[in-house]
Structures are given as C-alpha cells and as structure tokens.
C-alpha cells in the first residue's frame, strides 16, 4: 500500500502547486473582466469620489504583484478578504454556501452513477432492442436542453401540475435544524429529526435530477459504447460459454473494463457542477455557492471570485485524483504495470 500512499501524497503536493498557479492566474484574469469592481459594488448612484475611495481600500490602485502579495499575506491567515456583494468575509460566504451546493451536486453525482451507468449497461446488454432505443432517446434529451430548462420543466411537471415535490429552498420553512456541517442531510440526522431529514431529501430530488440529467446521458452513452467494444473481447465469450448469468456478465465482466471513460466524465461533470449549477440553483432557490460564484463574477467581486475559483479548483483536483486512482483500481494493469518508464 505504501507506493499508493506515496503516489497520493505526491499528487496532493503537486495539487498545491496547481492551486498556487490557479490563484495567480485567476488573480490576473479576474482583473481583466470588464468593469470597475468598486463602481459595480457601490451601485449605480455612487459618486466618483465614493468609487475612488473604495478602490483605494481594495488596493486596486497598486500594481498587480503588490495586490497579490496582500492576497497571499491575508490568505496565510485564512482570510480571503471581504466580498463586495454580500459585504461579508468571503470565507464566511463560502462556509455558508458551499455545503448547500456540495450536498446538491453529490446527490446529482450519485444519480449520474446510479442511473447513468445502469442505463448504459442495459442499453449495451440489449443493444438494438427497444430498451436501447428508448434509453438513447432519453439520454439524448438530456443534452438537447440545458439543465436549467430541465429544472423548469421538472418543476412545472412535479411541483406545479402535479404537486409532488417541494418547489424552492432546502427545507420547509416550518422546520429548523441547528447548523453543524451545513449539509442538511447530515445535520437533520445529527439533530435526530427524521422528518426534517425526509423533507431535506425530498427537496433535493428535483434539482439534483435536473443537474444530473446531462451527466446521466453521457455516462450512459459512454458506458454503452465502451461495453459494446468490450463485448467483442474473448473473455466475454469465455464468460458466456460458462453460462454466467447474462446480467452478471454485463454488470461485472463487460462493465468494469468499460468504466474508464464514464468515470472520467462523471468526475469532471461532478466537479464542473460546482461552477455550473447556478441556473438550477436559481430555479430551485437553492442558496448555493454556484449562484454565489456567478453573482460575484458578474459583479467583478474580486476577492469572492478568487475564493470561489480556488474552491472549484480544489474540487477538480481532488476529483481528478480520486478518478485517476479509481481507474488504476479498476484496471489492475495500470496499477501493476511492469513497464520500463
């Protein structure tokens, strides 16, 4: 196990370098976004003098390198500065909004895995059948409209016409749980409030599904196309000749070696949702980080942009490490490679 641990440590180490790189890059890029952050923050009616004062306070008059120095010095103390959008410390904003989005995208990610992969397996196993065609249409629907359109459609179907699911927010107004982790599914359980847990879970269904839809489609299609290839491999024929149950052949023998592309894409989709879920969050009034991220980008709220991008970046790094690791697990030949480098 020790080489694995060493590998993971090495990856984590380089991830830190990547994060520093990202912070510099985003620091520079964010400042290229058109608009004067002070002007935007102060609102349309502010005077030039007010704007100038704020610019000074934000060090915006100084060269970029000096600004970055300020940033790093503050960061060392765990301070990402104050958001001009919420007028609160960015760290406080992130701490409040990140769990909401994470909870949402984790559920969406699980849906991609638990719905997308099986659909792919089914359509590969029954390729050419009506089930395959149905799944194909269903999965392609997911890429024919953006997730927020699906969010709207789902809301209309299951909250407006057929009031089965809650419409907005994370928990019914009448319920309350003390915040511990910020993840309501966990906090409700910690509070021992099963009813609230059910309610929070119920709130998650539609937004998570709307978000997951495109990932489900990709996972299913990629799984299918790779499984179709794998089905031609001699070891599948061998498994068939031994009469292993067909479902089992599909699920174990053909599926696992075909998992690499779907896993890669699900991983990316999952991490990308942290930045891309904003419209779905908007539809379901989800107080999440994604919406916050977009709000601050559009307002050129520099501190908040850097803060959220670093979080997104960290998630990508973690997810990619996990995916690379999982793939090495799935395919022992990568892990146990004897090849000379």
């Amino acid at each position, binding site marked *: 196990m020790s080489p694995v641990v060493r590998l993971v440590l090495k990856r984590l180490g380089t991830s830190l370098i990547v994060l520093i790189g990202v912070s510099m890059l985003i620091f520079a890029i964010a400042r290229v976004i058109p*608009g004067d952050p002070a002007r935007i923050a102060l609102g349309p009616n502010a005077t030039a003098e007010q704007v100038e004062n704020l610019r000074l306070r934000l060090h915006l008059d100084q060269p970029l390198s000096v600004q970055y120095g300020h940033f790093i010095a503050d960061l060392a103390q765990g301070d990402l500065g104050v958001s001009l959008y919420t007028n609160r410390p960015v760290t406080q904003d992130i701490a409040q909004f990140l769990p909401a989005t994470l909870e949402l995208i984790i559920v969406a990610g699980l849906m991609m895995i638990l719905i997308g992969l099986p659909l792919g397996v089914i359509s590969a196993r029954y390729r050419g059948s009506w089930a395959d065609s149905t799944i194909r249409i269903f999965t392609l629907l997911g890429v024919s409209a953006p997730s927020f359109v699906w969010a709207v459609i789902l809301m*209309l179907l299951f909250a407006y016409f057929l009031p089965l699911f809650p419409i907005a927010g994370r928990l019914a107004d009448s319920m309350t749980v003390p915040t511990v982790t910020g993840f309501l599914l966990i906090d409700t359980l910690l509070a021992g409030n099963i009813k609230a847990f059910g309610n929070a879970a119920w709130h998650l269904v539609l937004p998570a599904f709307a978000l997951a839809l495109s990932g489900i489609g990709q996972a299913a299609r990629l799984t299918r196309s790779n499984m179709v290839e794998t089905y031609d491999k001699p070891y599948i024929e061998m498994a068939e000749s031994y009469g292993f149950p067909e479902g089992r052949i599909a699920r174990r023998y053909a599926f696992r070696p075909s998992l690499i592309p779907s896993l890669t894409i699900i991983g990316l989709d999952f991490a990308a949702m942290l930045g891309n879920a904003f419209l779905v969050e908007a539809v379901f*009034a989800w107080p999440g980080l994604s919406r916050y991220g977009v709000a601050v980008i559009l307002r050129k709220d520099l501190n908040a942009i850097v803060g959220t991008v670093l979080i997104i970046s960290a998630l990508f790094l973690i997810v990619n490490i996990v995916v690379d690791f999982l793939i090495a697990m799935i395919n022992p030949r990568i892990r146990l490679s004897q090849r000379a480098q």
Partner: protein
Amino acid sequence: ATTGQAAAQTVLRLDEVAVGELDPGKATDYADSILMFNVYDTLVLPKQGEVGYAPHLAESWETEGNDFIFKLRQDVKFQSGNPLTAEDVVFSFDRMKELGQGLSFVFTKVEGAEAVDEHTVRFRLSEPYSPFIASLVRLPIVDKKLVMENLGEGEGEMKDWGQAFLSSHSAGSGAYKVVSHNPQEETVMEKNPDYFLGVPDKAPDQVRLRYSLEATTVRTLISQGEHDISSQWLPPEVLKSLAADGAQFLTETGGGAFYIKMNTAKPPLDDVNCRRALSAAYDYATGIRMVAITDEIAQGSPSTGAIPVGMYGANPASEVMQRDMEAAKKYLAECKHDPSEFTLEISWIGEVPIEERFALLMQANFAELGIKSEIRKVPWALFTEQVTKPENTPNISQIFVNAVTGDPDTLMYPMYHSSAAGTWQSPEYLKDEKVDALLEKGRTVMSDEEREATYSELNDRLMEIAPTIYAYDRQSVFAASNRVKVPALSDPSKSFGMDGMGFTFRLMEMTGE
C-alpha cells in the same frame, strides 16, 4: 429558518431580484429600500396619496437660513430597547457620510448634523438645497449604542462603523425586526410588538423576503399558495399567466421611466436632427403594448416627456408621446449624416431580457427610415465599463431609471447635468448649458411653484434637444395572491410617491392563511 410559532401566525412571502442590503448606510435599490423602510425609521416619510412629506420620527421642522432644525418624537425606542435620541440621528448621518456608499451622495450639500439637545437636531447645509427634506427618506436612523457595542475590526475611533454587524443584524426602530438574513436566500422579519406607532393585527406576523427567484419558481410557488407577492421584474407573459391562475395585480407608479438613451458625443447621434428623427420614428404605442399585461394594466404608462407624470415639471398625462413618421423623415433629411453611411449600434442589457424586444422594435422602426442597425447584448458589468468613455458607449442604450427620493432633482441631475456624464445613467454625454443651468436652479429654488416652473422648462428643453427617447413611464406591476391586501399598491389615494414605500408591511393586511 425560524422557530415555528403558534398556528395563527400569518406569514407574508415576497421576493426581489437583487439581494437586499441590510446595512441602511449602503442601501440603494428596491430590495434594500423594502428592508430599510420596515426595519428602520426616518425623520420624514412621503405622504400617502399626495405629494410632499409628512413628519415621522421628527415631530416638526423649521429652516434657519440654509439649515434645517428638527424636533424629534420622544416616545420612540429602538428594537433593542434603547431610546431614540438626537445623538442617534447625528450618528446615522455621520456614518452615512463617512462610509460614502449607498445613497450618501444625496447629502452632498449637507455639511454636518449636530444634536442641539436630546430631541433636537440641526442639519447644516452649504447652500440652499430644496430637495433636502425629500432626501431625508434616505436617512434611516441607526441605534448608536447598539452599533458601538458591536464595532468590528478597523482603523480609527469608529473602527468599521459597525459594518460587519449591520450587514447581518438590524439596529433600527422599525415595525419589523430581522430574524435571519441569508444573502443568497431570504431575510426573515418579524413584527416588532413595541413599535412606537403600533403594528396592526392584520399586518403579517412574519415576513420572508426572498431573493432572486426565477419566474417559473414564483409562478409555481404562488399557485401552490407558498408565495404572496412577486417582484416587479417578471415578464408580462408570466404575469399574465399568474393572473390566469387567479392572482391579483398590485401596481406602484413611481418616479421612474424607461429611457432609450442616445450617445450625443458620437456620430451620427451628435446631430440633433438625427436624434429627433429617431425619437419620432420610435413606435411608442407598440412599446407599451409589449409590456402590457391585460388591457388595463401594463408595466408602463404612456410617457409625456422627460419627466415622469406626477413629478414637478411633468407634462399632463394627456399629452402622450406619439410616433410621427412624417416628422421623422423630415428631421432625417435635415441631419448631416446620411443613413446609408452609418449603422447604429443598439445595445441591451443582458440581465433585462425584455430590452431585447425593444431593441428589435427599434431596429424595425428605424429600418423604416432606411437606417441600418445592429443589436448588441451587453452584460451590466460591461455596460457600466463601456459608458465611461464616449467612444465606447453604444449609440443607443436602454435604461430604467428611478428617482431615489421622488424628487425630480435626483432623477434628472445625474442623467443630464454635464458634470454627470459617463455613468450608466448618462450615456448621452449631454453637454447643454441651458439644461445645466435649469438643473442647478431646480435644486435651489424653494417654493413648489418655482420648482414646477423650472422643471417644466427643463422638460421642454430636453424634448427639444432630444438626447433620449422617452419611451414610457414606469409602472411596477406585482402579482399577488389573494391573501394579502396592500392598499398602498392598489388604492391611489393610499399610495406613496416613492419606490419601495408601498411595501410598508405594517400597512399591509393578511387575510386567511
């Protein structure tokens, strides 16, 4: 979320597009105003159903030269229990000035405030400034003692002036107090039982002001009985469908208008005749129809000129602007630029989708004159950047502007005074001596008649030099469930002459659950 209370509790739920700014010193837009007027009190308030201002925290006031002296009520306590005194007024003013954010600019003519005694305050003005009383609706009074107890980190004696504290707590005397505030979700407020004017039983016990809800969400929420009042920013089609689902409409006619602004600093619209041609070619009636919800209600009412109906200097409601193609052709012929030689750049703000339709309307209208144009969508951030330089400012921009105090000065001065050029409100880059002179005069003359006359003259001048197409006067339309009654938004005799004041929750009535 809040702790659940007795079943009989009435909850009012409404939404606004932007996040409400809780700090009264920084409040600017609509949501901020709603919070401010309910959580804080001001010295004066707009009169209901008529122009002018009524005493509120102040019992009375008098002028002394340029100065204003206010006598305060003595029975007012903050939500914290601290009594409200002249000290608090002075503190609130100083804080506003010192932070220099929000609407502090309306007090630029005020040199300072001082407590004459515990219940008397004097505001010293540098020069005669007639809109001062109106400005006071933008000076919410903050609980000094409470704030001083909660100063955050910062330099100097006043440290951060309590900014950190006030961005998520309230320190007011208002009829509602803040229970919780999540900038991405909602602000929850509850009745203040000790309010100095008392809060009627019918007023909602709890208010949830939600932020940034999508049209579909609002619609679904209202249809499921989980929401009461929509924001005014819904597209007309959605409002229409809400009405079909049984919602009522509330309207607020405020001091604002939809302006189509022309860049006078750049050809071809540097030529007044070109501008006049466009103004005449624009199809005003169709514009209103585009924002119509029902036959009676629209999100705009016909414009009569530069100043919205109801303000000093406005033309009577009967003199509506109209399309006149003959005149347009005539003006165009006199323009020094040949329409075949330019292409107009019509911009619209990406965040306000309805503007796309106006852009298309203009494109079609101007095409009838033989003027080519291209449409450009710009996000707000980019727009505010572009307008800082006349050469980058589009030929045509579309802007909704509201008077922050209900006085024409705060509406017209930032738009048309030459010193104000280059902001999002003034992409015209207008430089007209006569307009400047009239704007300056308007803020110094004191009597209503003089002000009426001055602004009327200004209005005429602005019509003549046509820097703007005065498309329509704003009318905010809200869809609401039938559980609420909002007299200020449905009965003209109860309405306030100012944006956001209609949402004074203590004057709302909740019926049923």
